[in-house]
């Protein structure tokens, strides 16, 4: 590495492109089973400072992957990342300043070991023989990867939705390894309403005639079921207001009602399009495992209260929610804040006004940046100061 300081002037910090690492050890899971071999797909953006003080782990949501920001994809061609408005040069999580790492989660279908991977013991794809994984298990894989990359302490662990659950889990399990935690549009445990939507999605997949007990990899995919699951999911990511503005009651490619069961409202064709697009890039089994992992997620698991979970934590938090998010509403973020207050933790919180529902965390970059930027800068200042003090003594 030729530069010692964050390079503020450059516009395109280095991106690693798709990387893959096989963990040195088998992985013990929350369910009690063990995965003999785990491969984790990851990407990095920006430069790691020589003192390793500027590493930021970004965790993805249900349908995400390691490609969080703009950089080369598997084919070498540059493409945008799933959190492109927030992660990149000069953005809320500024890749000119920070070394951003993003991994595809355990159970995923974008390079990390999941139900579509080959079971080394049978030589066949796991399918539903893949063990149920939890958000904690996802974090353990990230921990193992960072160990092997030689990153002992993260400046920040950040993420939206299921990514926020991973961030919170990091802070609970490894408070000495994360300086700050930035959970966005997330919750500390799924409410019945969210579990219910997940269950409808799973029911659609499990009931698809091509599902074949999860062993569909050689043949027809359960595309219809997965598309329906995505359509339901997508509705929960929007809001009444945003759907009204985006579609209203407008008809697609026709002037009058069809009096037939065809897609005719714009909102119908939009959802059908989202479903179709999703099926091309996502594995139905992974959808089952991800939704189950979220349903099982309870940050308070094994403790009486969030205040007990985070008692005297050294981690500093910035919690962000969105006014129209009804999947993980603001009150759930406030419960996190209350728990952190009870624990004596240092926490900042803001509810960002937005009409975009849960998806707002992908669509409101400036409103997020106004809080993220100073929060991260303070952490970086402290991290670098600490390191210098340590070197002097």
């Amino acid at each position, binding site marked *: 590495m030729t530069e010692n300081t964050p390079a503020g002037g450059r516009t395109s910090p280095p991106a690693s492109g798709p990387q893959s690492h096989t963990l040195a050890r088998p992985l013990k899971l929350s369910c009690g089973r063990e995965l003999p071999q785990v491969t984790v797909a990851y990407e990095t953006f920006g430069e790691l400072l020589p003192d390793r003080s500027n590493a930021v782990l970004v965790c993805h949501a249900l349908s995400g992957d390691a490609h969080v920001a703009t950089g080369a994809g598997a084919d070498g061609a540059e493409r945008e990342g799933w959190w492109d408005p927030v992660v990149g040069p000069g953005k809320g999580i500024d890749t000119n300043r920070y070394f951003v790492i993003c991994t595809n989660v355990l159970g995923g279908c974008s390079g990390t070991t999941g139900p579509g991977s080959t079971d080394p013991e049978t030589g066949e794809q796991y399918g539903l023989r893949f063990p149920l994984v939890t958000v904690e298990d996802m974090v353990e894989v990230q921990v193992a990867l960072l160990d092997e990359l030689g990153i002992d302490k993260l400046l920040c662990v950040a993420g939206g939705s299921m990514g926020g659950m991973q961030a919170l889990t990091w802070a609970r399990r490894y408070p000495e390894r994360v300086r700050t935690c930035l959970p966005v549009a997330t919750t500390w445990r799924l409410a019945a309403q969210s579990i219910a939507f997940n269950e409808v999605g799973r029911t659609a997949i499990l009931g698809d005639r091509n599902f074949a007990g999860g062993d569909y990899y050689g043949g027809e995919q359960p595309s219809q079921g997965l598309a329906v699951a995505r359509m339901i999911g997508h509705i929960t990511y929007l809001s009444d207001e945003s759907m009204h503005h985006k579609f209203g009651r407008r008809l697609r490619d026709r002037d009058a009602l069809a009096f037939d069961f065809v897609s005719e409202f714009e909102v119908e064709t939009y959802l059908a399009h989202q479903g179709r697009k999703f099926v091309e890039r996502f594995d139905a089994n992974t959808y089952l495992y991800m939704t189950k992992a979220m349903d099982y997620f309870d940050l308070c698991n094994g403790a009486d209260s969030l205040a007990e979970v985070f008692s005297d934590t050294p981690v500093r938090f910035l919690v962000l929610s969105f006014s129209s998010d009804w999947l993980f509403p603001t009150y759930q973020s406030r419960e996190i804040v*209350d728990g952190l207050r009870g624990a004596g933790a240092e926490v*900042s919180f803001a*509810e960002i006004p937005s009409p975009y529902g849960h998806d707002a965390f992908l669509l409101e970059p400036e409103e997020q940046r*106004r809080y993220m930027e100073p929060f991260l800068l303070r952490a970086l200042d402290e991290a670098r100061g600490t390191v210098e003090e340590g070197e002097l003594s």
Partner: protein
Amino acid sequence: VTPADLLRADLKLVTELVPHGSRVLDLGCGDGSLMAHLRDERGCVVRGIELDPSEIAAALHRGLSVVQADLDDGLTGFPDNVFDFVVLSQTLQVVRHPAFVLREMIRVGKRGIVSFPNFGHWRIRGYLAARGRMPVSRSIPFSWYDTPNIHHTTITDFRDFVSANGGVIEQEFPLLVGGFSAKVQRVSVWPNMLADTAVAVVGPAK
């Protein structure tokens, strides 16, 4: 006198009242000026609550931690007595439930420091008496129908308010900010008539 002058005057007094190393919660902390001052000059551990997004962002830029919340929703999550001081500066008159806010202050803090404009000041009394209209001044520059100040009080009313809500006034500082002197003056005689603002240290009644 502008509201900003009032704020500056009692922030100075608050700083003097808070011992080194105290744990302080600032309600309606704005851009965090007081918090930053207490942290940097007096080694205090500080937390803030504020409603306005741009003020919160400004406070974060000072390296402070601030939670966006409405004081009328209470200080949920904080255990009892975790702060040495809870500061409410020129904000009591804008909350919907002043009694609830005061009770929350003396629940989570060992002491509260409350500053408020004194509606019993002779200028305000004179304005109302002479003109028969709701007073509008530089320190209270709002028409009655368009004001954030929905709960004005006088120093005398404030004393009753505190004792009616489980508190006791430990110290009271009637101040004249808008007098002929450029400096803030302590008012020792006839405070409810001559002070235009007041700062009170409030503890829980024994």
